[in-house]
């Protein structure tokens, strides 16, 4: 029997203002043997919109991007790019697509300019136009001084910038960036985000797959949260946070977690759940309940390992919709940074 992904509560869609739909994904399904990778995913991205495709590892982000890019066949559903059916006329649809896969994919022996040249020429950009585009993307990604350097002689961050720049050389209507900041330093991340913003301002629809929540917030992107192969929340960041972003506190305890009793049940500022390894307080003023719960734990308080405060943010949206913390799969560093060690 194929494994069915648990059905998550799907958040009510928030209306987006972008009028021209560049990417339309409807009911996309993909299965690898018994494993369901995509389970009827829907996604729509408009011109000039940055959509942060957010989800833990294995949620289906890369599978979705790979199908849109024509690298994988879908079992069911539809994908249109700029109005062209990408599942039946993939090559024509790809003329509107720029794709930077998750893995670094550049030609190490040749120069930055030559890398950009080959990807430009493959998109039928040639001559003076190609030279101008190379100069433009090189400037946007701060690669101008490195144009004649062999890619293999560049730092990891520089290679990552070249990798992403190569997807933009032909100014596609839709840009798919699959975890573009994997393994880069803070400076490179900032440059990449700046370039993405510039491109969106120019009208490009951008699907930005990541599991780093702060990047989505920094980009001011709209959000599509994908989990178990379905887009379970979609909308503008601030609206999603306003609708679903109830703050929470996780008090993480060495098991067994004490059974619920009055002293560790919620006070007026939050409702409390007793989970396998934590007590979770939810509510607009959840942090006010920490002391109340710790006192209620009595001698069990000695087994408290950490207290995580999840403020109203994308993470609290993810928690509210899935019932799970984002840290379980990825992005632990972001969550730990909020943590309080007693």
């Amino acid at each position, binding site marked *: 029997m194929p494994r069915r992904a648990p059905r998550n509560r799907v958040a009510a869609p928030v209306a987006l203002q972008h009028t021209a739909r560049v990417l339309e994904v409807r009911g996309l399904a993909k299965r690898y043997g018994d494993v369901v990778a995509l389970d009827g995913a829907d996604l729509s991205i408009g011109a000039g919109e940055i959509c942060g495709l957010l989800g833990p590892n294995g949620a289906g982000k890369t599978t979705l991007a790979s199908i849109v890019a*024509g*690298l*994988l066949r879908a079992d069911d559903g539809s994908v249109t790019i700029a109005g062209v059916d990408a599942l039946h006329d993939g090559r024509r649809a790809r003329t509107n697509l720029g794709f930077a896969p998750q893995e670094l*994919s550049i*030609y190490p*022996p*040749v120069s930055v300019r*030559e890398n950009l040249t080959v990807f430009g*020429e493959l*998109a039928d950009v040639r001559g003076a136009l190609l030279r101008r585009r190379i100069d433009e993307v090189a400037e946007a990604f701060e690669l101008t001084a490195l144009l004649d350097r062999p890619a293999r002689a560049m730092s990891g961050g520089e290679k990552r910038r070249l990798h992403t720049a190569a997807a933009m050389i032909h100014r596609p209507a839709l840009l798919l960036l699959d975890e573009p900041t994997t393994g880069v330093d803070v400076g490179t991340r900032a440059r990449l985000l700046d370039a993405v913003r510039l491109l969106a301002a120019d009208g490009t629809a951008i699907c930005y797959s990541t599991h780093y929540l702060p990047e989505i917030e920094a980009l001011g992107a709209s959000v599509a949260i994908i989990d178990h192969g379905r887009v379970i929340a979609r909308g503008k960041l601030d609206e999603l946070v306003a609708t679903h972003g109830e703050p929470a506190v996780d008090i993480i305890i060495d098991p067994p977690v004490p059974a619920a009793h009055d002293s560790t049940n919620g006070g007026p500022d939050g409702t409390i759940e007793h989970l396998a390894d934590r007590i979770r307080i939810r509510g607009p003023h959840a942090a006010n309940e920490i002391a109340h719960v710790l006192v209620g734990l009595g001698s069990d308080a000695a087994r408290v390992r950490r207290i995580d405060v999840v403020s109203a943010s994308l993470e609290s949206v993810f928690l509210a919709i899935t019932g799970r913390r984002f840290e379980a799969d990825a992005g632990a560093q972001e969550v730990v940074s909020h943590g309080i060690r007693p």
Partner: protein
Amino acid sequence: MAFGRSGAIARNELRILRRDPTFVLIMLGMPLIVMAFTKPAFRAALIADGVAGANGAEQAVPGAAVLFGLFLVGNIGFTMFREHGWNTWERLRASWARPSEILAGKVVVPLAISALQIAVLFTAGVTFFGLHVRTSVVGLVLVAIGFGFALAGLGLALMSLCRSVMQLNAITNLSSILLSGLGGAITPLSTLPSWARHIAPVTPSYWAMRGFRAAILPGGSANQAAVSAAVLAGMGVICAAVGLARFRVDETKVSWA
């Protein structure tokens, strides 16, 4: 098919080659060295074979061209495995280029190297090794073209059939030597055992050597060379068809990574 996109792939291959031309230099230099020390031995063999006035270059030059030409077969496959090693294959697939355009671009540079190799070896043969093309220069050129087609087809077939670069290396090195030996490129065909002479016509090296000899030695003809060229081109087409039938764009090739 858009030649522009195949051209983009071919130019990229050329740029990569320019950054490290060692392979090409070896493929041009080594056969010259081999020709220098095999020529005297082949003189006696050719005279014993009834080729009056032979100086050995008549076997040494085409033999080296065929042997080292076959070593180029792996290069076609390697250019493809390299894309998997650098993770650029998926990027190419997501580009505007059709798979056929990518493959065409991949074949161009190895074919050009093959043409350059044959041109250099025969020019050096005439200039420094006393080779006389006594029957038909046109026939020689036709055989060289047919041989190029056969190499390209063989390269495409092996690229499709091999799953890892290690398989490709092992098979191309082994088959280069085996096919050269069977086809009479390492030693004249007349010196091979009879069983080997019987199976030799299934190899492209046999038809290449036969065609080159028809163009070089007295008693041959341009027509004989043209027949060999046609057989070689046919072999190339069959091998390419096998390669294309087996080729899967979404197959994961194991490169060095």
